[in-house]
């Protein structure tokens, strides 16, 4: 068999780049910030650089290449800011809900606020709090014991005669 003729289908996702160039990293991060809603090129650059600075501190994520880690760092940066602004624990589902609220368009000017002095973030904070919808109310647990159903059995009466139930 001529192994040279065996063709392998291209993988769905391209192979990871082991040592990405800084251009590639900035390009990817730029696209990611834009997808998050940051449209000002200066803000995109500043945020991308901040994300890259956090990269060395970020714990290793198995199976994620350096570009992927940069994306994780960008998300981490955003979560940091959200956690501080809304005083939410990290990591938490509430933080993910806050991120979803932020990205849902509830606060369209959020990138500007990110660069504003801390006191000017109050309006954004209120808008976000209003936009975070709890998926469920706080629990009010109750017990629902399985009921006993004594199914009919032809042998039932005989068995009861043989082994009478103890008196209460």
């Amino acid at each position, binding site marked *: 068999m001529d192994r040279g003729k065996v063709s392998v289908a291209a993988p769905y996702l391209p192979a990871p780049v082991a040592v990405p160039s800084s251009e590639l990293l900035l390009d990817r991060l730029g696209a990611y910030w834009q997808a998050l809603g940051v449209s000002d090129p200066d803000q995109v650059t500043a945020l991308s650089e901040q994300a890259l600075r956090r990269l060395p501190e970020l714990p290793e994520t198995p199976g994620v*290449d350096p570009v992927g880690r940069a994306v994780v760092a960008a998300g981490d940066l955003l979560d940091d800011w959200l956690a501080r602004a809304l005083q939410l624990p990290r990591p938490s589902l509430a933080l993910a809900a806050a991120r979803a609220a932020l990205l849902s368009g509830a606060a369209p000017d959020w990138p500007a606020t990110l660069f504003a002095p801390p006191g000017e973030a109050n309006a954004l904070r209120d808008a976000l709090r209003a936009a975070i919808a709890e998926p469920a109310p706080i629990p009010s647990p109750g017990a629902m014991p399985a009921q006993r159903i004594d199914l009919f059995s032809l042998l039932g009466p005989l068995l009861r005669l043989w082994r009478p139930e103890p008196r209460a």
Partner: protein
Amino acid sequence: MTQSVQSPIMGHTLRRVMFFLLVLLTTLVAMGLMVSVFQTDGISLMELILLLLYAILFSWICVSFWTAFMGFFVILTGRDRWAISRQSAPSAAPAAPLPRTAILMPIYNEDSERVFAGLRAIHRSLADTGRLSDFDFFVLSDTRDPEVWVEEELRWQDMVRALDGKGRIFYRNRPENISRKSGNLEDFCTRWGGHYRYMIVLDADSIMKGETLVAMVRIMERHPRVALVQTPPVPINRVSLFARILQFAGSLYGRMFTAGLNYWQLGESNYWGHNAILRVQPFLDHCGLPKLPGREPFGGDILSHDFVEAALLRRAGWEVWLAYDLEGSYEEIPPTLIDYAKRDRRWCQGNLQHLRLALSQGFNALSRLHFSMGVMSYLASPLWLLFLIATGVDAYFQTQQEQVYFFGQNWIPVWPVSFAVEMTTVLLVTLTMLFLPKILALVLLLKDSRLRRAYGGMLNATLSVVLETVFSVLTAPVLMLFQTKFVLAILMRRAVGWPSQQRGDHETGFREAALTHGMQTLIGVVAGVLSYHYVPAFFWWFIPVLLGLMLAIPVSMLSSSIALGRMSREWGLFLTPEETDPPAVLRYLEANLKEDEPVLPVLREASGSRFVQALTDPYVNALHLSLLPEREPPGKRRRHYLEGLIHQLEEEGPDSLSAAQKRDLIADPETLLRLHALFWSRSPVEVLSG
């Protein structure tokens, strides 16, 4: 809390005694007729079998007939002082504040757009009453399909944003759908039930008027002994000919049957699983369902849980009512004959399971009857088939006795005595069963001019009844064979599963019809040839059944036609009040489906795959992550399994994964975040940015 078992109203007992006496007497008279025919030359084994089958089937028909007759009487006189909606309670204050009530919509792989359009219509209708703040909405998802799951989350978020429903409109997807729908409701009750005095359970296609919801809560407030009030859901909104015929029949005859059911069942009525209000605490205390011993189909989870829950509430002394006169409760029905049969297949297993419960200890007599009626609604089909076969065989043996049917040139046959009376009786019974309640329903229209107009006038309504009767005669043998097949499959312990329904309008093509009805057509042809050849006299009596089977393919295809459905509407046929003058809540639903513009941009854009969007779109990814339940990190084996799936996705793409595998990937928060980073690092940017 356990209530007194018997309602203190003497009339309740009188009604039931009257009902069962009528059923018993009618059955005895018919049986007497049959026995006298058979007795002429002694009763053979075959005749004994025929008698037994006839007794079961006739009493079943009598229950239905007398129920309809009593309903006719109640509606005609307009008097029913024991209807739960009309019973007065001295302590009732009409403007008293309502207690918190949860509106629950359990869903399983449904069309999310329709589900949320329906919920929004109900929400708006409730807002019209000014009582919206007394109700919370819960979408209780058991959805397994990852595409539908993500879509549901987006639709929920959109509904919350659009209706300012924060803290009032909730959504959750169960990690495991243990015990199906009953487990879904149990999960709600045990986690959040304590917040609410009542819960109103809907189905994915249920629609209810706000006024009706408020009225249901008020009834419960007036009657502290009542644990459950069921409303009769009227079928609506489908446009295929099949569905429009069923909608017409359900609407016109249904109100008579439900009025009749309430007449003799009163506070010992049944639960149909949706469009009903339940008192949460008794439901928690008494409706935890056990697993039945043994394996499926008769053991395991209780499938048709509603009947059992009603029976358990009655066992604990609570009242269960059917508020037959509460309007504004709607549901959608399957659009084609094949979908109708598929729904039957799901219900059949659950109802046959009730065989084991009907004789269980501790249940009330009427609960046992409900179980038996549920069983009979499917067992009747194989019994009818057996009866037809036995009649044919009996007729064949009689022909072997060398009897002479025709004398000289006379074309009118002279039947042997037992054969002619037997067949005439069967025919008369069938005709009575089919026609009399339909005629009674038309009589009721004569009395009410508003209703008469709503059904398109007396002439159109009468013509619709005639056509509906012809259609039901043609489809009855087809459904008989379907149900017989389901019953046999279940008795042979072949579980039928719990597939989700295809609820939207769609048509049946020739291939689907031929594959589904081919065997039925063949049976019709073979039975026709055999009866024509061996029992020619019997053949002519058998024609309605044979015709239904032989025409199964064209009838199934034509009746699924949306064009014919629309045409019949233009001609004023099969009209229902909901079509003639739709209530506001149905207009809201239609508007939601046609014109509503989602608030979320992601829902306005076309999406190839919501699963891929959950991995790539930062918003969808964050929303999905925020809605995942908190749970322990996966163990080592699970991590390896997920790792394998990630590699498969990287190499072969999402199409190589099954729905369950996709679900596993997006159900784990760590994997979700990792895949998000992975896609953003390696996919072409143009793809990711849309």
